[in-house]
Every structure is written in C-alpha cells, then in structure tokens.
C-alpha cells in the first residue's frame, strides 16, 4: 500500500525538491512506498486530511492542533531552534508608520495559512482591531500578499517572517513592517497519521541520523530545519495545541 507525504503550502516553492528528496529517504527509512503530493492551498490540504490522504505532513501549529486533536495524528519531530513568526506590513509610501496610525476598519491581504493569520490578528489587538474590524482577502502566496499591499489594493498584509525575509530588496523597499511577532514557541511539527504509527520510530531514527550528517546540511536547511530535528513528545504537542487555542479570537 502506498503511503502519502503531504507537502504543505507552508513550504517555499523553491524547496519543493528537498521535500521530494526527503520522500525518497522516508521510503528507505520505513521500507514502505510513499507518494509525495504538493498542496498549493490549505483547503485542498485539509480535504486530504479528511480523506486520509496525508500520512506524513510537516504541519504548521494551527494544523497540528487540528490533526492531533481531531484526526489522532502522532508527533514525530520538530525543527530545532526554529520558530514561526509573522509580520504585519503596509505600503512604504502610505501614512501608516505604527499600529496607532491604523484606521478602525482594515482591508487585509493574507494567504490561507491559519497560523500566520492567527498571529497577525493578535498583533493588531493592541490597536483595538478585532475580528469584526478586518476584511480579509486571501491571496495564493506571500508574494501576491506583498503586491496587493504595494498596489494599495489593501491597507495591510499578513506575511510569514521567512517569506518576508525572502522578498527581494526592491519589494521590501516598498513595504513597511509596522509590527512583528517574537513568540519563539510556535513552530511546525512533523506528524504521522495513525495509519503509519508503527513507522514513527523508524522515521525518527532517520531524521535523527540526518541531523548529525554533515552532508545533509543543505537538505535540512531546505526542509526548514537548519539545526536538525528534535524529538517531539505528545506533551510538547499538547502544549502547542493549548497555545493555539489560547491565541484564537473565538
């Protein structure tokens, strides 16, 4: 039976190849056939979860809560010393320099990444901006979020920090970061579906071995784990779930 490795829309397009390389390694680790699928939006990925078509996934914190609590997924590993952060940006030509300059109703461009949206909404709370004050436009990727801000199609953009860092200097010059998160404890997790629970130890052994292999350094960086992987316990995962629950504005 072929298992499924779901490549989340969180993954930078230029790193897709690294995930296919990891897929090959996972097949060697487990002795099972894995098929890697690239998802370009979260609606499709969530459908794959519902259809049991994602046995292995590198999930963001919001999806980790969904998968572990509602679908019985099990934690394997997380990247060492890497946290998920986000920035709220405005047009550099505009009048907004700080949160205090924002109007009481905002148009916002964001991708459909649920963790980034949740973090950025929280960043706007000190300016008295709640869920009802934001009109969200979902864009397919962070570059289009940046363009929507630069073209004044929206007043602010929500960007994952790594995606903002990857923007060209020319694009960054046209944006202004008005607030950014420094949360440190939100991160992506490598999760296994209950169907492959028996392979978790083999996968962890493979990931641990990669972490200590100097030749794997470039691959690890591409996978978003430049410092290697660390074992993720169910307790750590429950903490992440509680944290994401606490950050929801419901």
């Amino acid at each position, binding site marked *: 039976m072929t298992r499924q490795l779901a490549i989340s829309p969180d993954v930078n397009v230029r790193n897709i190849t690294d995930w296919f390389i990891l897929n090959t390694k996972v097949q060697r680790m487990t002795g099972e056939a894995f098929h890697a699928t690239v998802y370009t939006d979260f609606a499709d990925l969530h459908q794959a979860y519902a259809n049991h078509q994602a046995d292995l996934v590198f999930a963001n914190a919001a999806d980790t809560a969904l998968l572990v609590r509602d679908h019985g997924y099990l934690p394997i590993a997380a990247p060492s010393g890497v946290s998920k952060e986000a920035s709220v940006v405005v047009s550099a030509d505009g009048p907004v320099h700080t949160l205090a300059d924002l109007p009481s109703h905002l148009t916002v461009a964001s991708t459909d990444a649920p963790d980034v949206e949740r973090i950025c909404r929280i960043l706007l*709370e000190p300016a*008295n901006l709640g869920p009802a004050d934001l009109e969200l436009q979902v864009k397919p990727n962070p570059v289009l979020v940046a363009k929507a801000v630069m073209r004044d199609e929206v007043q602010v953009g929500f960007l994952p920090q790594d995606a903002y860092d990857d923007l060209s200097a020319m694009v960054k010059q046209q944006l202004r970061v008005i607030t950014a998160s*420094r*949360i*440190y*404890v939100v991160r992506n997790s490598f999760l296994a579906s209950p169907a492959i629970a028996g392979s978790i130890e083999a996968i962890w052994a493979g990931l641990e071995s990669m972490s200590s292999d100097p030749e794997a350094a470039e691959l690890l960086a591409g996978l978003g784990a430049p410092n290697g992987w660390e074992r993720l316990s169910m307790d750590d995962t429950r*903490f992440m779930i509680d944290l994401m*629950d*606490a*950050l929801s504005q419901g």
Partner: protein
Amino acid sequence: MRDMRPEDVRGEWREYHWTYFDGTTRRLLVTDVETRFPTGELIVSQTDAAGLITMCNEAFVHMSGFSRSEMLGAPHSILRHPDMPKAAFADLWNTVVMGRRWSGYVKNLRRDGGYYWVYATVIPKIVDGLVVGHTSVRREPSRDKVEELIDVYATMCAEEGLT
C-alpha cells in the same frame, strides 16, 4: 509565599498585608512603576492542578522580574496585584474549572513591586478527560481598554473593601 522585601523593590512603595484564597498571607510592597508589555511577544506559562507553575517562557521571566528557578513550583498567585478585584479571579476560576477558556485584562505584580498589564487567556490542560493544570498565554493589551479598566477595577476593589 515569601514576603516582599524593601531591598528587592524599585521606587517608593506602599505596603499591604495580603490574604490569599487559601488563607495564607504575604507582605506586598507595591510601587507605581509600570513595565510595558513587549510588542510582538507572548508570556506563556503552565500550572499543575494545584496552581503551581510548571513551565514558563523567557518573556515571563523578564516581565515578572523573578528568576526561572523562583517561578517554577511557585503558586501563580505570586503575581497577584492588590489592585485586581477578587471578583475577576473568581470569574477566572469559575470559568476554567468548568473546562472553558477565560480571557480578561489583568494587572500583574512584579518581583520589584512594579506592575505590568496583560490580556490573559487561560485554558484548562486536559489529559484523558481530566483537568491536570492550566495553560496561560498573556499578550499585549489595548491601552484604551487598560485605561478604561483602571477605574472599573478600582471601583470593584472599593466595593470589595480592599482599598
């Protein structure tokens, strides 16, 4: 809990002899020095079922003024500021014991007698259907809300006979 000591306090202080819900007492030395919540950060902690701190992040250590070793194993009420009405904490407790999340604005007491405002969310930590503790996440509060609540809490405290 150990009494606060003048040598640990920064600025002019007022003295309170505080009685906690469990009957224990503590000498509090309170100043008017505010530490503003660091923008973009979160204070995160976990407690066990008895309300003792089992985990805290660096932002918590920084904002509370306590060392990590002082925090771990201490009751969360070590942060309780006398300007906070009892009714607010009663509401918090009554909500979380029912397994529900609680959110609200809280003025916390620092080790040095100063204070910091937070918007806190407390959720029960449930394992195998049992509440084994709580996770508390504090974020930067709206200043407008804080200004509004200073008077509201003062009135509530006066009604409770705390001031």
